[in-house]
């Protein structure tokens, strides 16, 4: 079980690097799909089976399709490399590494690996999520349906050629 997590974590990191570093937008989108699917496997390994499948259906299968279709429609061409700031080029990556290192250090101190290894197997089963969603969280659930309606209307109006 544990080696699978590290394999898919490594895959997710490699794909995320590809998202950030690729010049062509379509390749970035495809790499992001790989990230989403490897994260879905990680969710499965962590016991969130319903969310893993929802992630694939909604995120990788609908949102990213939207991204890919928009990239195709707008004919996004590969980015030309810009040379605007030497400071950014030489200081950027090291500063990012320092920033990440600090956060990782704080996390490691707060949740030492040895003490947080075991956890009870809990159901991410659809029934459990459904019960929680429709009992405790029914108000946010209904509000998000209105949110989605507003988003649909907004997207249709904004993308029209003339109102």
């Amino acid at each position, binding site marked *: 079980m544990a080696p699978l997590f590290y394999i898919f*974590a490594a895959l997710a990191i490699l794909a995320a690097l590809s998202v950030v570093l690729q010049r062509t937008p379509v390749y970035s989108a495809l790499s992001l799909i790989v990230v989403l699917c490897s994260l879905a496997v990680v969710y499965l390994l962590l016991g969130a089976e319903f*969310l893993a499948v929802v992630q694939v259906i909604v995120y990788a299968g609908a949102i990213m399709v939207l991204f890919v279709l928009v990239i195709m429609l707008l004919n996004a061409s590969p980015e030309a490399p810009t040379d605007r700031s030497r400071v950014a080029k030489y200081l950027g990556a090291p500063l990012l590494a320092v920033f990440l290192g600090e956060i990782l250090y704080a996390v490691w101190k707060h949740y030492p690996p040895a003490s947080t290894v075991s956890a009870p197997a809990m159901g991410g089963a659809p029934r459990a999520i459904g019960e*929680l969603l429709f009992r405790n969280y029914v108000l946010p659930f209904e509000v998000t349906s209105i*949110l989605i309606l507003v988003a649909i209307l*907004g997207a249709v109006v904004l993308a029209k050629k003339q109102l």
Partner: protein
Amino acid sequence: MVPLAHILALSVILFGLGVAGFIVRRNIITIFMCIELMLNAVNLAFIGFSRYLGNLDGQIFVFFVIVVAAAEAAVGLAIIIAVQRHRESLSIDDFNSMKM
């Protein structure tokens, strides 16, 4: 079992890569994709904590984050399409004035 620190480490690395991409890249759509990467890193952290604390509320939160990300992606891409029609360009260097 995977220690919580490792899950959070993965989440932090993905989030950092998302921030880096958001700041460095010039193409709007790629910037948008780095935002989605950051959202996913946060989702992973939620699920990690939900597993460690034995509480399903984290997963419900992830559910709502996914829904909101979907709505945001739809509207954001519609805005990008509309703006590209006016400016004929997808590079944020060209979007540097408030006036269309």
